[in-house]
């Protein structure tokens, strides 16, 4: 859930490697790297991947952000791989470059082959950035994907039909109900009684923080959000770095409110924490929706299998499982969720979000203006 676009520096995987000579990493499949080299299921295939002797099976390489496959609390990656491979007689290789989607943008710019067939985990903002910075297309139109019509219309964020949403989160306040009752409106946050009480991840450098910034723009307009932030800053809001910086400072009791996700109680419940300390507040009864999409790379070597994968992800039982494991909300109307999920994972009375067209051409200016006002020394 934490997008972790923060610490990353640049991409990860590379096929041409001297690993062999150094006696490290060795040959064979070593995880996210060396995809598409035709090596299948050799060597150190660990438990958790039931590739078996997948001699001639096709390989699907899927790029994503690392916490989808490798985070202690949220990683549907292993489950998805296992299920997909069992059913489709194919091998699924996760690729998790450290600078995530930008890695593929770099590859396309440099004219280097993209080994991945699909990418999982891009949001509206990402898509706008890609389209503005690349002359050649990075993603292809998704085409005929099973279950595509089941996606909630409000979540569709790509007007050009490349990205298909597979889940969504709602950005909200999370507050410790034992020490404060969060205000119900944006304006309420400006009350003196909440001075120094709110922590938010950095709007310039994190997806979570940026969603919160966009929500204030939604609320106050492009002409008014800077004034609101000026008041918020006067009331001692704390803008920290990564989502993790913000959330851990909040957990440590540095402030009673934090900008995070409306599924917070799901985690709290899993950790047997006091739910009273993990209450959710939708300011102005709204939650900013941050749908995550998946798309097929232009020039993918296995586009048909990629389409099958996208359809697989949209299936009702897979949608439910991803939502639970990724602690988000499903993107489809047909998802099968456990009955008690809705009790802990809260949906806002009114979801709001900016469309692709609204963000295009505007978002970078909004962020820059905010930076220049907030960090002015």
């Amino acid at each position, binding site marked *: 859930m934490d997008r972790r676009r923060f610490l990353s520096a640049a*991409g990860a995987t590379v096929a041409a490697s001297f690993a062999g000579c150094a006696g490290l990493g060795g040959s064979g499949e070593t995880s*996210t790297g060396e995809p598409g080299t035709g090596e299948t299921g050799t060597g150190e295939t660990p438990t958790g991947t039931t590739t078996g002797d997948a001699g001639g099976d096709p390989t699907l390489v899927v790029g994503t952000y690392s916490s989808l496959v*490798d985070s202690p609390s949220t990683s549907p990656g292993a489950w998805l791989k296992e299920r997909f491979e069992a059913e489709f007689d194919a091998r699924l290789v996760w690729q998790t470059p450290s600078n995530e989607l930008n890695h593929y943008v770099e590859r396309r710019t440099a004219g280097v082959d993209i080994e991945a067939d699909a990418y999982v985990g891009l949001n509206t903002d990402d898509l706008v950035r890609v389209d503005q910075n690349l002359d050649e297309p990075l993603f292809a139109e998704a085409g005929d994907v099973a279950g595509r019509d089941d996606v909630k219309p409000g979540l569709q964020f790509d007007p050009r039909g490349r990205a298909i949403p597979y889940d969504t989160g709602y950005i909200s306040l999370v507050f410790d109900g034992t020490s404060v009752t969060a205000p119900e409106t944006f304006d309420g946050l400006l009350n003196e009684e909440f001075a120094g009480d709110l922590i938010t991840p950095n709007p*310039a450098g994190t997806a979570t923080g940026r969603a919160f910034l966009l929500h204030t723009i939604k609320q106050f307009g492009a002409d008014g959000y800077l004034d609101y932030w000026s008041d918020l800053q006067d009331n001692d809001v704390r803008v*920290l770095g990564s989502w993790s910086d913000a959330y851990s400072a909040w957990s440590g009791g*540095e402030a009673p409110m934090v900008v995070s996700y409306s599924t917070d109680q799901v985690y709290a419940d899993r950790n047997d924490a006091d739910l009273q300390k993990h209450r959710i507040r939708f300011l102005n009864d709204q939650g900013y929706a941050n749908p995550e999409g998946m798309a097929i790379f232009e020039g993918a070597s296995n586009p048909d299998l990629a389409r099958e994968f996208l359809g697989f992800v949209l299936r009702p039982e897979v949608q439910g499982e991803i939502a639970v494991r990724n602690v988000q909300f499903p993107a489809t109307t047909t998802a099968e969720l456990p009955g008690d999920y809705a009790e802990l994972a809260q949906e806002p009375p009114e979801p709001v979000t900016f469309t692709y067209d609204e963000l295009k051409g505007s978002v970078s200016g909004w962020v820059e203006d905010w930076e220049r006002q907030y960090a002015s020394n």
Partner: protein
Amino acid sequence: MADAIEGGTEGDDGAPADATTSGDREHRDSRSLRGRLERRALVALAAATVGLLLVVFYYPVATVFVDSVLVEGRLTARVFFDILSDPFYFGEPARLLAGDSLASVVEGLLSPDRRLGIVGFTAYQAALSTVASVALGLPAAYLLARFEFPGRRTLRSLTILPFVLPSIMVAVGFVATFGQRGTLNAVLGAFGLGPVDLLFTLEAVVVAHAFYNAPLVARVTTAAWESVDASAVETARSLGASPLRAFRDVVAPQLVPSVLMGAALTFVFTFSTFPIVLALGGFQLATVEVFVYRLIRDLEYAEAAALALIELGISLGLLYAYLRYEARHTVRSRGIRPLPRRPLVPSSPSLRALLLRVGLAGYAVVALAVFVAPIASMILASVSGPEGATLAHYRFLVERQTTGASFQVRPWDAVRNSLLFGVASLAVALPMGVVVAVLTTRDYRGRKLVDAAAMAPLAVSGIVVGLGLLRGLVFGVEVGGTRLAVGGAVAIVAAHAVAGYPFVVRTVAPGLDGVDRTLVESARALGAPRVRALVDVELPLVWPAVVAGAAFAFAISIGEFSATVVLASGTSQFTMPVAIERFIGRRLGPATAMGVVLLVVTTVSFLLIDRLGGEDVGF
């Protein structure tokens, strides 16, 4: 050459020793293959070092920096001009470029509501951090170099431990120590004081920077102090100098260059600080690197590259100034008998001795709060859960090791990789550093410029290095239809060595410059090739500096993140810091448990390096 013995200033070292090689001796040497190899060893090593730097550092970094002057295929200085004339970045001085008069700029700078700009503020917080690091580092050096007490060597080996800790761990430790519900407030509360609100301030950031860098100052100063020749002090004392006078005239001049080096490096590191500022300070304290990072994330490469180049230019300018100073203040020494250490418990209680111990005790309390408490808090966090003490986070590590999928980071693999990369890159960085130290202590015009350029790996923005390695090495270049690309373990080791070797240069070069030339001359006259004289004569004389440099190079490798994630050919090549980053989740337990693993592994490694390095090897 005779004047070199007495000389203390740049320019009179005489010609490089190689030039004096007589034809006769050359003939004798060339009869043995070993002799031939040894004569060429230095040249070959130098060539290899330059080659490695070009491939693994200068070329990759250039692929990013070029974006600042090459916009849409056209050469331009526009991006730089825009940044330099932007008050947001350069504060009042930026108005100079916009055409304002010098007088109005000076007036602006003197007014209370002056704008420093992001660059000015970054320099300001780096300067504060440097002062704090020196203030906290010097007493530690004094204690370690001048006193004898049980555990002294262990403590000395562990001084640079903070250096390897990922910022996320330091943030956890600092919140748990200095936060509103932190240890400090608990202690203050017990005395009926407080609570104090220290976090998310400039002060918190400065203290965290001191946590990282005071150990650096302490370590290099300790090495210098241990190299002070006791006989010089004794001579001064026998001539009637008071202890204070002897310190001022004999000891201090030998320490100042090291202290300044520690200070210069601290400034450079804190000038490009990034995650710690946002984790413990907040965006209102954003530094240049925060913007470089954000711009690269948003693919705004021209502005990012220009900003990173300006950042680099300022850092290298400062390093160059320091190197000029260092060259003019070389300490000549001949033969080394270290100063005897005093017992921590004074043998004869005098008022002076007592005051000194009280001062040291006061320092110990501060050091305990700044260095030990955050580390202890990290360890505590790794065994804490919502319901009190737990080993669940360590169980997670074991579980991930035994059942983790191939695309997940496994803890033991990360430990093994870190150690292998650390040892291998140390083996590369040491000869690289020594060779560059030899080259830059020779006498030729502009050698300090070369020296400063050789320090660039310390000063370049981490995100730029990462992007450069991706473009330059991982993507490679196309030659005749085939793509030459480099990645994997060898590339990681090379990148780590490049990142760590400047420390070897900086610790070894001053000592090497100070080695009595006549010793080298004698060795050469007796037929020793240059490299033999270096290994047999010079290096033993500066051995404490070599060990300190080695420890730093190893530490850099252990803590390295951005190059590792880019060059690794898969999760199986990830190291401990990458594992920590990957294990961050809703709760920080698993990440902190991995952090404690890093702490333990590094502690053992440092103790080993120090023991292998020996206390008095080579004399």
